């Protein structure tokens, strides 16, 4: 190869070194090595610069999470939610009646995005901005309780102003008022509540009734046709309850015992697999005879296949909430508070519940719901009966060390 061709684009000293090396017949230092050396030197510096900064503690009085609030001058709100999680107009699915009513009542225009498909994925998406202390461009997000708790713990959520939340303060269902990750609801308000129950296909069990989590784990008639959820809190919470432990205050030993209990069922092939929402198809076809399932899914599944039944175990069941919260540095906190407060009115909550069929956290909205959708109001999967509601349990919040340890053990359990 022509030397000039090689040397082209090199800096003068490098070119000189090359020429010397070549003319002296000591071409030992090849171009590749030179490139490697430069890359290595540059790399070492760059590698060190890639660390992730420590999360700021949310308990600092200076409230570092708060951003400048331009709500009063800028009447907009960017609201991120899960898909199919808001009421839509029966004729025109692009219209969202309750959001339109909010805009009409307050003048705040809502940019509604359905970009949350998974708690952990969403966390992965917004983490770099939040860790760097930047605005994510979202003023209000809906996250499941433990993820909401993590954001609050890391100081990545803004404290809400109770003065703007009068409806929410009055109408929040009592059992959701003091979760240990946000006691007194200073940062978050529930959008909906989710119930984790047992479901089975009575055709696949040949008419046999399923009554407990223990039966899912042990009954030989169900061998290889049982699934649990790949969400750690749902699966372990239900198993803890079946072992007589309280998911709201279990110890690390209790957790290990629950893992061991499930591991046994994995090892002897009783449990077929751990699933996300995709259990529905197999439950309906009968490949899965029984499983742990989410109440919201079951309404649709039962409507499509009358063989599907749900059971509230005698030991109780798990309920969790999806919560609205304002991420750190978001610039329209007051507009977000207006929206939270708006959805805590009885008529609006009833309209939302009729549209999405998830349990509403708004106490006293049932009469309104009965007016617009009587059949929904009678469905215990949407409006839990008093006896059911008495059996709900919450999963306690975890410290960061516990979260890593438990998630790691659970990942091994589910094979990954």
């Amino acid at each position, binding site marked *: 190869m022509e030397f*000039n061709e090689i040397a082209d684009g090199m800096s003068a000293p490098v070119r000189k070194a090359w020429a010397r090396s070549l003319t002296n017949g000591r071409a030992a230092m090849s171009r590749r090595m030179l490139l490697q050396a430069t890359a290595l030197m540059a*790399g070492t510096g760059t590698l060190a610069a*890639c660390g*992730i900064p420590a*999360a700021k503690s949310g308990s600092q009085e200076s409230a570092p999470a708060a951003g400048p609030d331009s709500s009063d001058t800028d009447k907009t709100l960017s609201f991120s939610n899960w898909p199919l999680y808001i009421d839509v107009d029966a004729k025109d699915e692009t219209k969202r009646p309750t959001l339109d009513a909010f805009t009409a009542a307050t003048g705040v225009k809502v940019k509604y995005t359905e970009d949350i498909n998974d708690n952990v994925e969403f966390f992965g998406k917004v983490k770099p901005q939040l860790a760097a202390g930047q605005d994510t461009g979202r003023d209000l997000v809906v996250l499941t309780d433990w993820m909401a708790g993590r954001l609050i*713990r890391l100081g990545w959520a803004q404290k809400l102003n109770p003065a703007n939340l009068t409806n929410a303060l009055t109408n929040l269902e009592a059992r959701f008022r003091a979760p240990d990750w946000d006691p007194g609801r200073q940062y978050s308000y529930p959008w909906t509540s989710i119930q984790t129950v047992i479901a089975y296909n009575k055709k696949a069990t040949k008419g046999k009734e399923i009554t407990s989590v223990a039966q899912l784990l042990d009954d030989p008639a169900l061998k290889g046709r049982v699934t649990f959820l790949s969400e750690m809190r749902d699966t372990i919470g239900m198993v803890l309850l079946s072992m007589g432990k309280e998911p709201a205050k279990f110890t690390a030993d209790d957790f290990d015992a629950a893992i061991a209990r499930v591991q046994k069922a994995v090892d002897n092939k009783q449990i077929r697999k751990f699933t996300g929402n995709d259990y529905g198809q197999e439950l309906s*076809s009968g490949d899965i005879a029984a499983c742990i399932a989410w109440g919201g899914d079951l309404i649709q599944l039962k409507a499509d296949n009358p063989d599907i039944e749900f059971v509230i175990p005698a030991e109780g069941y798990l309920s969790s909430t999806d919560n609205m919260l304002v991420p750190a540095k978001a610039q329209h906190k007051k507009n977000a508070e207006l929206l939270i407060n708006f959805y805590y009115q009885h008529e609006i909550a009833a309209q939302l519940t009729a549209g999405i069929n998830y349990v509403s956290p708004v106490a006293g909205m049932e009469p309104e719901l009965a007016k617009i959708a009587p059949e929904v109001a009678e469905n215990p999967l949407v409006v839990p009966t008093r006896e059911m509601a008495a059996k709900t349990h919450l999963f306690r919040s975890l410290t960061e060390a516990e979260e*890593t340890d438990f998630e790691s053990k659970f990942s091994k*359990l589910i094979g990954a």
Partner: protein
Amino acid sequence: MTATAEAAPTQVIPLQDRPPRRRLTPYWLLLPGLAWLVVFFVVPMVYQASTSLQTGSLEQGFQLTWHFSTYWDALSEYKWHFVRSFGFSAIATLLCLAIGYPLAYTIAFKASKRWRNVILILVIAPFFTSFLIRTLAWKTILSDSGPVVETLNALHLLSLTDAIGLTTGQRLLATPLAVICGLTYNFLPFMILPLYTSLERIDPRLHEAAGDLYARPFTTFRKVTFPISLPGVVAGTLLTFIPASGDYINAQLLGSPSEQMIGNAIQKQFLNVLDYPTAAALSFILMALILGMVTVYMRKAGTEELV
């Protein structure tokens, strides 16, 4: 050669003597590609390399501590996931080759012009649906009470696969075989298309010539067609094997806890356990192992024609 070069001196003006604008042309042409590589390959790689050597937690932050033992720990913890990933994707690749080669051969030599396009469109058509949806569809196809399982059971084939550990019980879903089927299906087009392009280039007169030299059709295939199509085979196997090794959708939807692949482990470590260093280290180990295997393979297969 030298004579012509001297006769036309304009062709050999050394680069440094050319007008600067022309000297820079190749770099301007390279710029978009280089920029793309830097932003989407070099920067993420450096970031990931750094992450894999860090220690810490979200609350405390992650600092670069040159913690190399993460690699060793990750490898010893997940060695069976690696073995399983490469095993499944190797079998899937061989199946793709066995299914794809006859199909590509038919499209290239046997099908009429009109049918050729129709079949090619059919091969590509699945790409119009999402990967996830296509994999979910396999749950219906392989369902325990579905026609596939019933037929296989009637033929007692599932007892056979059970005996060699590919299935458990009288079912297909949540077994290694289901994951392999899913991988084979999802990556089949990546095998067929390169095979087709390399077969289609073969001059049919070569076949005639082989026939004139008294080669039987099979000998023609063995001595003429197959050797010429080797670049297509190499490209196809690489395009199938590499993405299949890192896939996690098939194992998650069609497998049970004992079929989880390395992609699932990386996903869990990154998203659920929040152990970013281990996730990054696992990705690097995966890349290194694939690179190693591909290098050996390319040396063996010879790829002068490929590049």
